[in-house]
Every structure is written in structure tokens, then in C-alpha cells.
């Protein structure tokens, strides 16, 4: 009896502290919301930022540790409070940029992102939380920012930056930070900054590397001066397929915030004609001296051919997102659905399941019956892997009673690389290996997880 009473009392105490925590959280969110400009789904014209000429006592206390810097001082702080900054992308770079700019007291902070918060964002996008999953990133970031410094005017934009809205938006801000995750957006932001005369503090990160340059600032180059032609889409690796260690964009975003603050306070940036590279694995920074802006540049040159914004997805041949593209390289006959493959697996018909993902992904999860030969090994005809393939195919051929082609099913994460592998394997069939009948599994292992086995991990 005593035990039951004790247990109930304990449970009650736990519940009460949960309620207190929930109330606190709610109060914080409500407080955050109250000072926010509401979520913008389209670009509107904001009233001009109210100009400050002096600091009040609260400002003096809040910013005292940076006011003590001779490089900044009261004059610099007042200048920062009169500046508006647009952060394009509230992801791995945008979160630390927004956080430090808000902490430092910029006047107005535009936060733009089209996506919603997902669990796989949280390792690097440090303003978002488990509680804001599913919310627009712009709103989630703005709420976090307004809890940090309610004196900053925060404008969340839940929209896709486009040729139609970019100029109207960017001309309302003094400085732009490119924290985007894809090539078309980088060209769009660059051109819009050149056409409106705004300095562009741009950074990027992938895996354990980062880059930073300030474009279109005091005679320095623009993004197009450095990269006149966009990269072929198939050479672009984004964070969702190449991976990124969360702290690396964190470091680059902090450097971006620093350069924005230097420009805002009139100190000027150190990277107007420099490309800063960070190699997190080696722990090394390198700075490459760049040329000034180029007379023949298509947008910032002497006789520009780009005088208005373009269709950047068309220009780059890729979509303005870091989500994976869906390839369609094969015919219907060369493909099976996950349901069809499940039936083959259940029938115990002899076949080979070839997983063409890199080993690091196979270590995350795989189907037990598969063998792993990465696509890159097939492309480079890596000897040990070709031998493995050849031996496995000829073993299967011996097990099969009839003298038909050995069925080979190719799988990867989403069903893009598997199609490339099918094309390669068809060329190898009857040459490097015995005759095989190759098909790919549509949608890959993520389709398997979605439609066949919900316990299979997704990443």
C-alpha cells in the first residue's frame, strides 16, 4: 500500500514538473511571437528602418563587451543597429549567421527559407529544435532569434526566391548573406545583388570543407566573375547526398556573420578579393587572392549582357533545391518496383542483389542478401570488385538449372545511381561477366523502407 502511495506521489511530482516546463515553453513561444513580424508568404514593401543616432542604457549594457572594442565603439554599434541584413537560407550556414547578427544587434534581419524543419536538419541547423519539426524554417529561426534579442526586427519569409521577387526583396536590405544550398540560387542572389548594388557575403560548406568570399563589394569580383559558367549538374554534390559535418557550416556561418558586422560597422571586409578555404580535416585555413571585378563579366562588367534576372534553373540545368533529382535513364522493362522485388525475394528464385552505394552508406543499413559494389568501382572497373561480381555471377549460374541469363537487381538509396549502374552492367554483360539480365529497383532502399519494411532505417 505504502509503495503504491509513494509511486503515485512520485508520478504526480513528475507530471507537475512537466506542466511547469510546458507552461514555460508556451510562454517563451508566445513572447517570441509577440515581437515577430508575421510570417511572409510573399515579398511586401517594409517601412524603412527607423534610424538610431545614439544608444540607450539597455543597449549600452547589452552590447557593452563589444562597445569596448576600439574597432567598433559606439559609432560602430549605432551603425550596426541601422543596418538591415537579408539571410538567404536558414540552414547550416543561415542559423549561425542569423544568431550572431541578432546577438550583435543588427536593426532588421530578413530570414528567407522555403523548407520546413526536418529531423535530419538538427545536427547543423542549430536554431531549429525537436519542437519546431514540420514548421517553416524561416519561422522557427525567427522565433529563436526573437527570444535571443527582441530588439531586432525579424522578418521571416517562407517563400522561394525567384526572378520575379528577388530584386524587390533584396533592394530593401543593405547587406545580403548567401546561405543557400544550391547553384541556381547562388547565381540568382549574385545577379540580384549586382543589379541592386548590394554587397554579398557568401559562404558554402560540404563534408568537412568550407569556402567564403565577399562578392560585389568595393571593386571586388562578383560570383560570375569567378564562375562565368555554371557547373554541369552531374558534378554537383549537395549536403543531402555528400553529407556534411554540422560544425563545418557552423564555422563558415560564424565567419560570414563577422564579415557582415565588419561591413555594417564601416570597417570593410577582408574577403572582397579573397577566397577563404577551410579544411576541417586538416584544421587549416587558406586564403586565395582573387582578381578584381572583370571587365568582361556578363553581369558586373563594362558591357553586361545580363541586365535583368534570368531563369536560373534553366541556366544551371538543375533545380533550386538541395533535394536529389529523379533520373529517368531506363525503360519500364529495365526496372522493377519494390513490391515486385519483394515477390522475387519471397519466391527464393536465384538472383543477385547488387547494392551500388558507397560503403559508408552500406554501413548505415543494407539488405542482408545484397553484395556491395559501389557505382564508382563499376565506373573505374576496379579489379577486386569486378572479380567479386564475376565470381558471384558464375556461382549463381551453376546453381541455376536452366541455361538462362542470371538475374541481377541493382539497388541504391533513391534509385538514381542504380540506373547508371544498370547501364554500365549491360555493357559488361557477356564481356567482363557472364550474360546477365539487369534491372534496377525503382526508388531504392528508401522506397523499400516506405512501402515494404517500415523498420528499415531511412536517412
Amino acid at each position: 500500500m505504502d509503495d503504491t502511495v509513494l509511486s503515485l506521489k512520485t508520478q504526480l511530482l513528475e507530471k507537475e514538473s512537466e506542466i511547469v516546463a510546458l507552461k514555460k515553453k508556451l510562454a517563451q513561444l508566445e513572447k517570441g511571437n509577440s515581437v515577430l513580424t508575421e510570417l511572409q508568404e510573399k515579398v511586401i514593401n517594409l517601412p524603412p528602418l527607423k534610424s538610431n543616432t545614439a544608444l540607450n542604457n539597455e543597449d549600452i549594457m547589452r552590447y557593452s563587451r563589444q562597445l569596448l572594442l576600439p574597432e567598433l565603439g559606439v559609432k560602430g554599434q549605432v551603425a550596426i543597429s541601422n543596418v538591415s541584413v537579408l539571410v538567404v537560407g536558414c540552414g547550416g550556414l543561415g542559423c549561425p549567421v542569423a544568431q550572431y547578427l541578432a546577438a550583435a544587434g543588427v536593426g532588421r534581419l530578413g530570414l528567407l527559407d522555403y523548407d520546413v524543419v526536418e529531423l535530419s536538419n538538427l545536427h547543423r541547423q542549430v536554431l531549429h529544435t525537436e519542437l519546431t519539426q514540420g514548421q517553416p524554417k524561416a519561422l522557427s529561426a525567427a522565433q529563436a532569434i526573437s527570444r535571443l534579442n527582441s530588439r531586432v526586427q525579424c522578418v521571416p519569409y517562407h517563400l522561394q526566391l525567384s526572378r520575379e521577387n528577388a530584386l524587390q526583396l533584396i533592394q530593401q536590405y543593405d547587406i545580403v548573406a548567401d546561405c543557400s544550398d544550391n547553384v541556381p540560387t547562388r547565381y540568382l542572389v549574385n545577379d540580384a545583388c549586382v543589379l541592386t548594388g548590394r554587397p554579398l557575403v557568401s559562404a558554402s560548406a560540404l563534408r568537412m570543407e568550407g569556402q567564403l568570399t565577399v562578392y560585389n563589394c568595393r571593386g571586388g569580383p562578383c560570383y560570375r566573375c569567378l564562375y562565368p559558367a555554371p557547373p554541369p549538374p552531374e558534378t554537383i554534390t549537395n549536403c543531402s547526398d555528400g553529407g556534411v559535418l554540422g560544425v563545418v557550416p557552423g564555422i563558415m556561418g560564424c565567419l560570414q556573420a563577422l564579415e557582415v558586422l565588419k561591413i555594417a560597422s564601416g570597417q570593410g571586409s577582408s574577403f572582397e578579393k579573397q577566397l577563404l578555404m577551410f579544411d576541417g580535416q586538416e584544421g587549416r585555413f587558406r586564403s586565395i587572392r582573387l582578381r578584381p571585378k572583370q571587365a568582361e563579366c556578363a553581369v558586373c562588367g563594362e558591357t553586361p549582357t545580363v541586365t535583368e534576372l534570368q531563369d536560373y534553373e534553366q541556366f544551371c540545368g538543375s533545380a533550386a533545391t538541395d533535394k536529389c533529382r529523379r533520373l529517368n535513364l531506363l525503360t519500364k522493362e529495365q526496372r522493377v518496383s519494390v513490391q515486385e522485388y519483394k515477390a522475387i525475394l519471397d519466391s527464393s528464385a536465384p538472383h543477385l542483389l547488387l547494392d551500388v552505394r558507397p560503403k559508408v552508406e552500406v554501413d548505415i543499413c543494407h539488405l542482408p542478401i545484397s553484395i556491395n559494389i559501389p557505382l564508382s568501382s563499376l565506373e573505374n572497373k576496379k579489379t577486386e570488385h569486378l572479380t567479386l561480381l564475376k565470381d558471384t555471377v558464375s556461382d549463381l549460374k551453376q546453381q541455376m538449372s536452366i541455361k538462362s541469363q542470371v538475374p541481377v537487381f541493382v539497388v541504391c538509396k533513391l534509385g538514381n545511381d542504380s540506373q547508371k549502374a544498370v547501364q554500365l552492367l549491360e555493357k559488361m554483360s557477356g564481356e567482363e561477366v557472364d550474360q546477365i539480365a539487369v534491372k534496377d529497383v525503382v526508388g531504392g532502399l528508401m522506397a523499400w523502407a516506405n512501402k515494404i519494411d517500415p523498420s528499415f532505417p531511412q536517412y
Partner: protein
Amino acid sequence: MNTEQVSVLYFAKSAELTGLKAENITVPSNISSLRLWQHLETRHPRLSVLRDQVVLAVRQEYVPLGEQPLTLRDGDEVAVIPPLSGG
């Protein structure tokens, strides 16, 4: 013809395509930036997809791909830097 040993550093996609982060190569001391790039492409044919986007830096300074001659010295650092776009 004088040759020099230079150290080539590969970043981002170029490290992936060559499978290397760095290597020492021997090249003529008087060579155009375009010839230097072609030399790297010959060693690593897969680099060719980067040709139109790559930033090539010699002694930490950008050099445009073209006919203008470089004067390389023993131990010079050549960096191959494709753009990153992620964030």
C-alpha cells in the same frame, strides 16, 4: 628545359575525382596556366568536367586558365579549387 617539382593540392570535388588530397608533380618551370591544367587533366582525366568552373591558384593567387606564362619554382603550391554550393 628546366623542370620543377610542385605540390598540387586538390579540394572539394577535385579530391573526389582524383582520389587524392595532394601530390607532388614535376612540370616545366615555364608553362602556361592552361598547359599546367592540361597536365593535371592528363594525369587525372576525370578532372576535365571541372575545367570551366575550377579556380586554379599558384602560390595562393588565382590564375585564369590561358596562355599567359607562369614561372614555377621548386616547392610551389598549386591549388585546384572547384566551387562548393552546399550549406
